[in-house]
């Protein structure tokens, strides 16, 4: 029996924190994509993650489809849900104010949550990790192989999104909407279509996050709200609208939560991230990497 030193314990907390932080980062990225185009906070963002996890359980365990097929299938189904959210809840709004959009996403999140409870019930589910359960020893700490998948997926998402926003016309159009929606429609960008794309994209990213985390932390129908709040904390910590901010914020929130649970109290684990949110709003509302203008004066 190897003795567990304090240092290796800290390393263990750091690894756990980075793993869960990657999920918060993905949720935060999803928030940013929709926020940049519509200025609305999508309260259903956490439900995408929950749906991703539970649908993957359905495809992987109930239908026994191999990961290589069930993963894209799940992402596709959740993306369709994102598109439906835009088509059925956002697009039909006659006066699409930000307030109305936010209310619509709150309603949609409850609808999705209720539907998930009817389909899957209240119990948590999981499915076997992608590459076994044998932990890898690393400087006295252990790493779950699935944890590496989670962090790897975040890296892939960041790279793909960077290429998408820099190199493709659609990505550039989305960025233009983020700067000024009215001006973009004047130069021929279909803003309503861009809103649709933003919902589809953040649904897909949320679903991926839900899929990779489920083997580690399980998934049940009412996980969405908490994930949304922590993702939003990450978003605000990094500076709302900023993608590097979302990743940094997510990882920091994950680390704070993991160290807080390990060193202070696990009963109040969920409170730490939320205190960070309130503290950031107090001290530096523009976030770590955001510009002050973003939070104060965005639209004229």
């Amino acid at each position, binding site marked *: 029996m190897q003795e567990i030193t304090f240092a290796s314990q800290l390393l263990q907390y750091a690894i756990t924190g980075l793993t869960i932080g990657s999920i918060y980062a993905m949720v935060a990225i999803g928030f940013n994509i929709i926020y940049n185009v519509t200025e609305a906070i999508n309260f259903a963002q956490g439900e995408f993650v929950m749906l991703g996890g539970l649908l993957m359980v359905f495809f992987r365990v109930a239908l026994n489809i191999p990961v290589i097929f069930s993963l894209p299938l799940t992402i596709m189904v959740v993306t369709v849900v994102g598109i439906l959210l835009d088509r059925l809840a956002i697009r039909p709004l006659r006066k699409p104010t930000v307030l109305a959009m936010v209310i619509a996403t709150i*309603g949609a999140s409850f609808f999705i*949550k209720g539907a998930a409870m009817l389909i899957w019930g209240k119990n948590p589910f999981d499915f076997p990790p992608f590459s076994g359960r044998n932990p890898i020893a690393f400087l006295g700490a252990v790493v779950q192989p699935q944890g590496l998948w989670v962090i790897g997926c975040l890296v892939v998402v960041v790279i793909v999104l960077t290429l998408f926003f820099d190199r493709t016309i659609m990505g550039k159009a989305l960025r233009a909407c983020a700067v000024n929606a009215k001006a973009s429609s004047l130069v021929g960008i279909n803003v309503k279509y861009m809103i649709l794309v933003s919902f589809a994209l953040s649904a897909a990213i949320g679903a991926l996050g839900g899929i990779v985390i489920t083997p580690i932390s399980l998934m049940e129908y009412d996980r969405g709200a908490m994930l949304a*709040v922590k993702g939003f904390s990450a978003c605000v910590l990094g500076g709302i609208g900023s993608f590097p901010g979302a990743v940094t914020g997510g990882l920091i929130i994950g680390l704070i939560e993991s160290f807080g649970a390990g060193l202070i109290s696990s*009963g109040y684990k969920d409170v730490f991230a939320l205190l960070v949110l309130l503290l950031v709003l107090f001290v530096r509302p523009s976030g770590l990497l955001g510009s002050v203008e973003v939070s104060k004066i965005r639209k004229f």
Partner: protein
Amino acid sequence: MTTHFQPPKHKSAVQLTGFALGLFLLPLLAQWVSFFEHYIDVMVFVGIYSIVTMGLCLLMGYAGQISLGHASFFGLGAYISGVITAKYGVNPWLCLILGMVISAAVAFVIGAPSLKLRGHYLAMATLAFCIIVTVIFNESTEFTGGPDGLAFIPGIAIMGCALDSVVKYYYFVWSVVLVLLFLCLNIIGSRVGRAMRSIHGSELAASAVGVGVAKYKIHVFVLSAVLASIAGSLYAHYLNFVNPASFDLFVSIKLLIMIILGGMHSLWGAIVGAALITFLSYEWLHYFGEAEVMVYGAIVLAVVIFLPSGVVSIPEKVRSLWGR
């Protein structure tokens, strides 16, 4: 200039008197009709929730901000009244005031940083607050009794007259509602109300004509938290029991649905919405059982899409269709 913007005073006075008369007659009516009797009990809860929704209505309909934390202010009032009266035997009225003061302070701490920013930071900050408060209610078992709740909260009395029957409490709660409704209607008709409406219209334009946008938003948020706390105290003394599940996120969303369904631009809408949702959840919705959450989601979506001004706008709509 001032009279130009004010809603006609006599009209709202007539409405208020009519409403009060109807409320006064309801229990007398209930004596004759047997199945009505039980509705008086539900109407007490309608009154209690109306106090919360009136504050929320000022916040949402007039200052254009969403709060998902009002169940927590409601709970703060209920727990402060409940714990202190049940465990230390302090006068309920003192606890009610203490609850109001603490809720106001907490609301200021949350509201001040998030309301200085544009956008819906308050919605997420209050969502976070609601989750924190639920955790605290559940974890600090020595005071709150934890998830099982806190029982044996004493009732409340007015000048030595104990409010020990449903009908007495009904009259008490609805008198409070009417007084607060009168105050809120006056706020809307005043200079402050016009400033709030201008913020809802356009923050930029409002600040350009010299309205202190952040200041008003914080004031309204604190006021709405105080109203929620009053309602919470009344709730604790009526039910004599509180538990964390009565003040969680689901309740915050229900309060929000009341406003949206009733019509967020009208205080009457706040009361109509509170009545509809309270009757729905106490009387009718349990037929749906587990699907209840989904039904609430569907109601929000349907109203925000098809009836953005809520149920109170239906007569207006019918009239305009008739006139065509």
